[in-house]
């Protein structure tokens, strides 16, 4: 900032020149960071060309065969591949649908927590139920392993001690109820955290509304239904819209750490599938093609969700 403006001597011209210089100085200060954004977010898009080559790691792209849309068409023309992709889509949709259905749980959690009269009990519940949100999925798997392992896991030992089962159950290496158990782990990890937003929303409801309803003779459940629920509906709606926008982005880590040879056919969601195809089987071209399709579909979902939001509440989410 060369333009030193002392005392009362600054003129309109000086201010103009100062503004002019400042305009670019501000940009130049942001530039190094914008370069980082370009490198890590935009430059990878250039990698989409790998979807049009039969690329193998180690061979330069210039010596690689250009295959056009082969990876895209093989999705529908190759029955084996199509079946595989359909299975992965089924897993993705099932787990996402269960995720959206369980997104109502934090609402219920928040409403009923408000009915707890003991402040210390409330505090303990909030503290301990939020904790799982801050541990990694690797650690969650570590917990799951210790509790449900076939080999001296807590649950098996407990049930066997009580004489309820004779042989240990192999819960982790089984493809029964994989979708449900993945959803339940998600609930375990995220319920307390997800409720915080609703608790804040409930705290923000005008107490006079409750008073008025009470004067009108409303009981506990009527207060919940006619005052609390309408009060937090806008918040729920925004989160629901965002959930729909992220329908095919289940994420990777949870499914990766919980996956094994036994449950792979049920746990393999899109993000894990891209990893298995690309990194494990080295089929970079096909993995990239799947990523491209996934990106396009999730953008469409995002815009659809945004339009829906504009339609219903007159305001978008992006």
């Amino acid at each position: 900032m060369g333009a030193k403006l002392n005392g009362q001597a600054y003129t309109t011209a000086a201010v103009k020149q100062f503004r002019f210089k400042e305009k670019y100085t501000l940009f130049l200060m942001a530039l190094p960071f914008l370069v980082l954004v370009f490198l890590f977010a935009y430059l990878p898009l250039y990698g989409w060309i790998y979807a049009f080559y039969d690329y193998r790691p180690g061979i330069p792209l210039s010596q690689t065969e250009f295959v056009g849309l082969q990876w895209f068409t093989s999705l529908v023309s190759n029955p084996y591949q199509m079946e595989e992709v359909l299975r992965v889509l089924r897993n993705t949709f099932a787990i996402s649908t269960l995720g959206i259905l369980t997104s109502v749980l934090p609402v219920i959690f928040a409403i009923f927590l408000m009915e707890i009269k003991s402040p210390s009990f409330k505090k303990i519940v909030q503290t301990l139920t939020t904790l799982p949100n801050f541990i990694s999925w690797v650690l969650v798997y570590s917990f799951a392993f210790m509790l449900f392992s076939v080999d001296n896991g807590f649950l098996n030992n407990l049930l066997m001690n009580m004489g309820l089962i004779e042989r240990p159950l192999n819960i982790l290496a089984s493809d029964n109820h994989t979708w449900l158990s993945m959803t339940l782990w998600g609930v375990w990890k995220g319920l307390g955290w997800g409720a915080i937003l609703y608790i804040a929303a409930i705290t923000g409801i005008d107490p006079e509304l409750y008073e008025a309803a009470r004067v009108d003779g409303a009981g506990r459940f009527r207060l919940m239904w006619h005052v609390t629920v309408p009060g937090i509906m806008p918040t729920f709606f925004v989160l629901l819209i965002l959930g729909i926008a992220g329908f095919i982005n289940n994420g990777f880590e949870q499914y990766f750490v919980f996956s094994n040879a036994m449950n792979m056919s049920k746990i393999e969601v899109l993000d894990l599938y891209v990893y298995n195809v690309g990194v494990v089987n080295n089929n970079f071209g096909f993995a990239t093609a799947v990523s491209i399709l996934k990106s396009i579909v999730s953008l469409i979902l995002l815009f659809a969700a945004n339009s829906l939001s504009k339609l219903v509440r007159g305001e978008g989410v992006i």
Partner: protein
Amino acid sequence: MGVNNRITIFDIINYTLFALFTLACFFPFYYLFINTISSNDLSSRGLVMFYPQEIHFNNYIEVFKIPGLGQATFVSFARTVIGTLLTVAASGFLGYLFSKPTMWGRKFWYRFLIATMYFNAGLIPWFLIMLKLGLFNNFLAYVVPGIVSPFFIILVKTFVESTPISLQESAQLDGAGNMTIFWKIVMPLITPILATIAIFTAIGQWNSFQDTLFLVTDSNLFTLQFILYRYFNGATSLATLMQSGASDTNLANIQTATSIRTTISMVVVIPILLVYPFFQRFFVKGIMIGAVKG
């Protein structure tokens, strides 16, 4: 909000359900902990279920004798500290810059930044570019890609815009440059939001696992999370590790697969438990501001 002070059936059910869910959230932490401090022999046979037995703290000493674990702890701490500092500094600075309407092309560059929240090139293209940028087996891969976080920048920008502009203007008239204004005027004002960002970044860095999985094969750069994963995955032979830890003569407390797994899990979770009480008050702020602009 009770109508009267009677304890109803509803209250009993409500308290019971919350108590059960809270127990379910907390029990795994407790269960792993009592297993790390109980006799390793009993623990590996699954006999330590509800309370510790034959308490000892050997595991916490033995576990650091495992080759590479000290290094992994160091890497995890280093990425958490360095990564958090860089992200917080960049979020604060960029949030301030983007709050300036005078910036050249502000609207375009801001959109250029925010748009990255909504698309993703995909794993393989990202991986190949990281490779080209020399970020394979490179510590910088842990801290550099996260420096610019659009979400945090939105938070800071909104926050700066809510502070009175007259403070910045009067400093400008006194001849203060942008850097001075940022350090002396803006920084003190945005400390609360920076603290929130710092906490969420630090937890994210400590818990991060995928970057090591994709970008690191050099064991000197392994993080605790990654090592923990490998011990469950069986990719590392636990038997050889147990041999190396077997110098202890107390046979009941010889290192077992269970003791190594539970103790490393505890090493991973203890730092989070230690800072948890202090950052709880940031929860609502962090999550609420996030909801303003999803």
